[in-house]
């Protein structure tokens, strides 16, 4: 019986992994280290607020946050299943992982939609 769901989940995992690989290092370096430690000047609030007004920025942020969450969900689910041999909890793990990714996506979409 051909599995109809896993190819889709694998595509999400791959897209999310690519987004995370390409974009997270620079974002994490800037936001998590360079700006707080003062190595580089952080962007001002007004500038970021203006950036957020563009629909392109909002789409970018949706992709940046949502896809890596699905990457985590798929990968972490298999890690728990194989690594900790939690086979009897397989359905629960799947629901929790993909559910969390969906919740994160929904929250992101909501925030981006309601910006004035």
């Amino acid at each position, binding site marked *: 019986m051909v599995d109809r769901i896993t190819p889709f989940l694998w*595509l999400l995992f791959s897209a999310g992994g690519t987004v995370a690989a390409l974009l997270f290092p620079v974002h994490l370096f800037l936001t998590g280290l360079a700006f707080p430690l003062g190595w580089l000047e952080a962007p001002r609030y007004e500038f970021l607020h203006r950036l957020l007004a563009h629909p392109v920025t909002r789409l970018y942020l949706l992709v940046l946050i949502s896809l890596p969450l699905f990457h985590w969900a798929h990968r972490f689910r298999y890690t728990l299943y194989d690594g900790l*041999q939690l086979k009897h909890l397989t359905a629960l793990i799947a629901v929790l992982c993909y559910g969390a990714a969906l919740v994160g996506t929904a929250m992101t979409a909501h925030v981006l939609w309601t910006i004035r």
Partner: protein
Amino acid sequence: MTSTVALTVARYRPEKESEPTWETYEVPFRKDWVVLDALNHVKDRLDGSLSFRWSCRMGVCGSCGMKVNGTPKLTCATFLSDYLPGPIRVEPLDYFPVVRDLVVDITDFVRKLKQVKPWIIRKEEKPLGEGEYLQTPDQLDAYKQFSMCINCMLCYSACPIYGLEPGFIGPAALALAQRYNMDSRDQGAAERLKILSEHDGIWQCTFVGECTKVCPKHVDPAGAIQQYKLSAATHWVKSLLLPWGTR
């Protein structure tokens, strides 16, 4: 210059014991000897009750796969000199039931290999009068690497997923399925999709990559599986967008 080396071999005699034990033998060290030579020395001169499989002793039959110091290897291609000063630990392959000493039962692998239909599937055969199927070097190149598999099962012994999920079809069978999918003479990709793109097929694989590392023929089964994941996912997208299109 050492003249002997210690070989610590896993023994399992079901009529005597319920768990494997270790036995150590001192074998002569020769710099051109492989582990298989040492095992044959044990069987010929020291302990005739030792059981193990071997055949061609030159790395093409796939019979002599065992774990040497924890790594799956072909014992006919593993030199004693690389493991000095010893002792050298020899055990049967992981994740297969041990029948006796170093002999494992491979029925599961054979069954899974048959499942993926490793032969040319044609919708209709070319009549004899039309001659042979012709293939360019580039078309051969598309699948040649995967055809090098000698069914030695070292990859199964290296794959933790196969150990955790006995239903997993496994690296060699999946690589051989891909060998036929990529063959220009084959028309069976749709038929194999039903077997490969299921839970115990490619989707169990998490790309650990150990199978490729231990393969003595450089088949790269991990690569074959990842390629197939992409083509199965592409097929899924196509079937979603064009449900009326047949492959």
